[in-house]
């Protein structure tokens, strides 16, 4: 067979090869994104995503969506502008969550015995689905950034609340009031993570009384919009094809 001949001899064979290629690329994409996004998320979201006693109504709500929208924006740019595929955000988040669950279950629980109910990851799927759908319907980076980015930030807290709320039930402990999440952090000893490292309930957002989470979510959503733009451009740049002039 010469280089100019086709590798396939029929349409059926071409379809079969194409599908095989689809699964190979999707499989590779999934695990490459899993690795990259997971490392990025651990370095930037870190403890806010590791422990329930870091998942507060201020900084967790603010930080996690902002650092989380990065890879979805970049992968969306690649998959949408080159293939018109609207699942960039979801594939990222599924990869991240699979990596996180493997890490939490094998490392946190299997090796160091922290209960899974103390170190489960944050939920990002609802925001990712909406982000993908907005891109598909709008075919616009700007609208996806503004509407989708806003939805990504705003859906984060309520999307996690069914899992977090039971841990915010108060308990009286030796004369002090704590939440069950605080108590998990106190009971399950983290030798290298002293209490003062926690960055929770810090800031000057006191005007809205106890209703801090919605304000934090709006702020997070606003910054998510900006970060979406930035990382969308990263994605477009990274997925571009360049040719060099031959001699």
């Amino acid at each position: 067979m010469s280089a100019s001949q086709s590798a396939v001899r029929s349409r059926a064979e071409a379809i079969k090869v194409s599908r095989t290629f689809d699964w190979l690329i999707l499989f590779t994409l999934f695990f490459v994104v899993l690795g990259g996004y997971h490392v990025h998320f651990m370095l930037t979201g870190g403890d806010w995503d590791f422990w329930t006693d870091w998942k507060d109504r201020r900084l967790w709500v603010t930080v996690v969506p902002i650092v989380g929208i990065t890879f979805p924006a970049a992968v969306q740019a690649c998959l949408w502008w080159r293939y018109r595929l609207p699942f960039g955000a979801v594939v990222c988040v599924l990869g991240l969550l699979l990596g996180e669950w493997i890490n939490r279950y094998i490392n946190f629980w299997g090796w160091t015995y922290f209960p899974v109910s103390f170190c489960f990851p944050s939920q990002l799927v609802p925001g990712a689905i909406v982000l993908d759908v907005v891109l598909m319907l709008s075919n616009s980076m700007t609208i996806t950034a503004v509407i989708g980015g806003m939805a990504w930030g705003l859906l984060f807290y309520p999307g996690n609340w069914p899992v977090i709320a039971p841990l915010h039930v108060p308990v009286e402990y030796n004369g002090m009031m704590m939440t069950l999440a605080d108590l998990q952090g106190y009971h399950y000893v983290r030798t290298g993570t002293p209490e003062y490292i926690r960055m929770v309930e810090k800031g000057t957002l006191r005007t809205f009384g106890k209703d801090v989470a919605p304000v934090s979510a709006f702020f997070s959503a606003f910054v998510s919009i900006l970060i979406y733009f930035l990382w969308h451009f990263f994605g477009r740049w990274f997925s571009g094809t360049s040719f060099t002039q031959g001699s």
Partner: protein
Amino acid sequence: MKLIKDKVAKLSFVALLVTVTAAMFYAPTASAHGEKSQAAFMRMRTIHWFDLNWSKDTVAVNDTMTISGKFHVFAGWPETVDKPEISFLNIGIPGPVFIRQGSWIGGQLVPRSVTLELGDTYEFKVLLKARRPGDWHVHTMMNVKGGGPIIGPGKWVTVTGSMGSFVNPVTTLLGDTINLETYNLSNTYFWHAFWYALGLAWLGYWARKPIFVPRHIAMEAGKADSLITAGDKKVGVGFAVATMAIVAFTMSSTNAAYPVTTPLQAGLLRGMKPIELPARTVNVKVEDATYRVPGRAMQMTLTITNNGDSSIRLGEFNTAGVRFLDAKVHVDETGYPDDLLAEEGLTVSDNSPIAPGTSRTVQVTASDAAWEVYRLADLIYDPDSRFAGLLFFFDEAGNRQMVMVDAPLIPSFI
């Protein structure tokens, strides 16, 4: 060339095999917490732990034990370490093999960080409940913001039983008693599985059709608009609406199920109550101090003045958790860890009782292999070559008096 490649491949394979085999046959337990690698001055000139007591050597799963004692916050705290204005009484164990059921400083529960004052001495207690069977090295520990973990003495404790039987009952302010070990676990698994399945469904919807090659060809051919059908858009709207509806509904139903929730609790506890020590009647002046490297011995020349009404003798020198005792004056009966106890490690040139109102200059030698084993000798390489420790004097009635010493140290290499 091929021969070389084959040889490299073969040797690489053999090397891999040897490595894997070695790891299988020799994988020793990592049983230390880096206490020996922590800079000597950090252990000698920050927190001085003493009168420590581990209530049990062996404890069954679900049973409790305590670590209690005192710690002195060294007044000459090194400049290179942040002051203990934000500190946390921790415990040095390999993961939550125990749970910390309570920790107190001066009788106050300290689940949060605290402010400690230089020069003060505090009483502390940590209540631990055994969770995972094994032999664990249990250390006292104080984390200092800007200073890091300052690890104290450790003792081996054996936990027996099965982790499967461990329970951690807690009663909430609403009157429900839950097992914190497993609480909320099935709820967590359910919601993560649910959303993961919905995400997979969205991915599956697109993956059921050709994905990359035909779509890329269509994009290149300018037929991008044909790739998203009206049906796709309807499905997309369905996913988005369903997602938002589920989020709204579950938020509402969760609020109904848990009407009382509070934010995470945080804050700094100030005003820790120190021990009120009796007025000091013994004064000690360090005339000079040398560390003799070959002999693993520290020698101090001390001028001791007894201003009390009873004669005194020097019984113990304690630094970085290592206790050097003069067995003729003081014998340890607390079961202190052997590796940290030099029962006859303290020699005083004249340790006859110092009468009230008199002074005496003596040569004090603290010698033991612990200087090397615990890498305290490394303090001669510190940027601020000083030593510090606690001296314990005993009067005729057996009463004890603690005196802090802090002075430059000159190494001797011959």
